[in-house]
């Protein structure tokens, strides 16, 4: 597009004219979502032709609000967090034109759910130590290895996958990034039950899985750089959403406090007020971060937002259980189930308390985020590295 990017009024106008041509009540859900994508009204900051209009990212809420007001069907983003928050920006940054056209539309509409095959039993925080091997075989790659903690692998059609293609060079250099078909022969998904009772995540075994070279993302050996893009987007995606005051977990406890005067104690009152202030501080910090991004001055607050979000969720959910007292001793359901989304508000307080423990582990542990802030933001010296110049195959495991 040669003209200036659209502003808020242009976008409202575009949505309205789209809605006159596409009546949500008279259309099949998927057909509507596909048409919305094709009109550039899916994620407006994406390029034209790929669901966007090259508009400022900050204008997305304008578009979403217009569609919501019209009662239009949603793409249920909570079902495809990894696809939308991580796979899509990575494909946009590193994908070929062919890959972008093939994958982005069904990803956005939710027709195809994505998962993330990164962590392995021997490589979590130290993701670059991973050992899943990919070996070239003509115009294909043969992949063998094991991934773990793979959220929603049981729902996923596609995965973003990082592999080791050269074990003879230091670990950061010998990696390659792929898009993996979760229905391909040799992909085996086994549920992994978690502390909440159900299994959101999985172990994924890859045995002689054949991946065509056209599903490689980025150059051979460039996997670490591509993975870093994914991880940066992950941290912005977690805890980075605009919420109203008392919109998060704090609202649940505040309402409980108001509704159940008999539960109140002076000590819990003080604890609640402290957390209320902290939740508000975190919320305003997120708002400021989004304003910085919109003003073209991205700040390093992203890792800090995730760090604060995890701690708050844990403390607030812990307070909720104590406040409940006797009722806090009950749990809703320990049966081994396979959820399709993570929902903090519709489950019991006990679930919230337990699930929040994952917030400081998933998407980079809080310790790793502190390392990142200390080293990349504050410029403090890095950790002593014993693995830097050693070939991957010679590392202690």
């Amino acid at each position: 597009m040669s003209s200036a990017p659209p502003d808020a009024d242009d976008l409202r106008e575009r949505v309205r004219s789209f809605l006159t041509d596409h009546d949500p009540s008279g259309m099949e859900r998927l057909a509507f979502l596909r048409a919305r994508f094709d009109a550039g009204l899916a994620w407006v900051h994406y390029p034209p032709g790929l669901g966007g209009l090259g508009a400022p990212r900050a204008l997305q809420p304008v578009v979403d609000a217009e569609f919501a007001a019209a009662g239009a069907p949603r793409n249920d983003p909570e079902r495809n967090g990894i696809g939308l928050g991580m796979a899509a920006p990575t494909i946009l940054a590193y994908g070929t034109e062919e890959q972008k056209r093939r994958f982005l539309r069904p990803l956005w509409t939710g027709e195809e759910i994505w998962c993330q095959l990164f962590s392995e039993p021997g490589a979590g925080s130290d993701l670059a130590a991973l050992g899943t091997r990919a070996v070239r075989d003509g115009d294909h790659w043969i992949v063998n290895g094991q991934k773990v903690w793979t959220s929603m692998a049981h729902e996923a059609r596609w995965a973003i996958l990082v592999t080791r293609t050269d074990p003879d060079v230091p670990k950061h250099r010998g990696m390659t990034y792929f898009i993996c078909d979760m229905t391909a022969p040799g992909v085996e998904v086994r549920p992994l039950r978690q502390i909440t009772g159900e299994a959101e995540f999985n172990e994924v075994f890859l045995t002689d899985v054949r991946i065509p070279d056209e599903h490689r993302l980025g150059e051979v050996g460039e996997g670490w750089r591509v993975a870093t893009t994914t991880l940066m987007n992950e941290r912005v995606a977690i805890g980075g959403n605009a919420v109203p005051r008392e919109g998060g977990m704090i609202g649940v406890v505040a309402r409980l406090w108001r509704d159940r005067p008999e539960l109140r104690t002076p000590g819990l009152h003080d604890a609640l007020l402290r957390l209320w202030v902290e939740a508000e501080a975190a919320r305003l910090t997120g708002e400021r971060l989004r304003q910085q991004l919109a003003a073209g001055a991205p700040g390093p607050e992203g890792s800090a937002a995730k760090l604060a979000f995890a701690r708050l969720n844990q403390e607030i959910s812990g307070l909720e259980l104590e406040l409940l007292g006797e009722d806090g001793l009950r749990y809703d359901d320990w049966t081994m189930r396979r959820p399709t989304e993570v929902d903090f508000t519709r489950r019991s307080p006990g679930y919230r308390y337990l699930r929040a423990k994952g917030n400081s582990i998933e998407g980079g542990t809080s310790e790793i985020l502190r390392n990142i802030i200390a080293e990349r933001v504050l410029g403090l010296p890095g950790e002593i590295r014993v693995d830097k110049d050693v070939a991957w195959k010679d590392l202690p495991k």
Partner: protein
Amino acid sequence: MTNLLYSEIEEDLRGGVRRVLDDRCPWTGVLAGLEKDEPYDADLWRAVAVQLGCAGLPVPDERGGAGASWRETAVVMEELGRAVAPVPFLSSAVLATAALLAAGDAGADLLAELAAGEKIAVVAVPFSTAPKGPLGTSVRVEDGALTGAVTGVADGAAADVLLVPAPGGLYAVDAADARRTPVTSLDMTRRLCDIALAEAPARRVAEGEAAVRAALTAGAAMLASEQLGLADRCLESTVEYLKTRYQFGRPVGSYQGLKHRLADLWTAVAQARAVARYAAACLASGDPDTDVAVAIAQAHCSAVAVKAAEECVQMHGGIGFTWEHPAHLYLKRAKSSAIALGTPDRHRAALAGLVDLPPA
């Protein structure tokens, strides 16, 4: 949503104030001032209030000011906090000015003089008074004269005029007509004094309590920005030091035990920036959320400033404990500021009423 960023004009203003402070307010000078008799740095005050014109920022042009807002004033407060500058800016250019902005014509002349930096006024309440707290005054009014005492008034010794809350309203008293006894203060960069009034001639500038309450609210909001500036400076200087100090053959800043604490502090300072900006923006626009914003800002920023100063002392080791290092200037200012204009606990208690989280 409220704009929480800094405008270009605000950044320019910051640059101007910082240059003056770097030049005229090095910490060595602040340290030397602790043991002098002068209650504040008069040259620095003239530079900031008059030459840079910062005293009149929130005052409209037609009332003798610069016609900017509390947002710009907040940026000046950040810079003054970084430098622990010994000037009565919070007392005169924020509290007294806010009181007179809320008062009627009777205070117009004095407001213009404050805005021009020609005079210094303070609101005569104990510095610990919270925006909604008791005013703690025993001052009586008889035949247009005031009698009574107020303890622990910040910058009272620097003032030309005292704005004294008493039954019926807010009264202006010539400071020369009061007996002022300096207090040996925890923070000698913002000294307190006890004030005694014995039939001191007074002029009423506002009726009722509204003007004093406006002053305390503005003071609490702007103090949050000062605390932010101080916390930011403590973090910055600690990080600088840890990169250069070697023990066990490595910079001590490479030890994770310290890095993680600094990462947490950085996170807290980033949050302090958001809440302080929000409070300043609300105050500037008269937002109905102002009381909530101020309570949040004070509850949060007070704690962050104290934490930053305490970490600054601890991570500097022995040198951080010496008189000859600026860390104690920050610590004393931070701890005093946390008590000033309401402790975090009082602000949380105020919040309980404001957002409907009643006590047990």
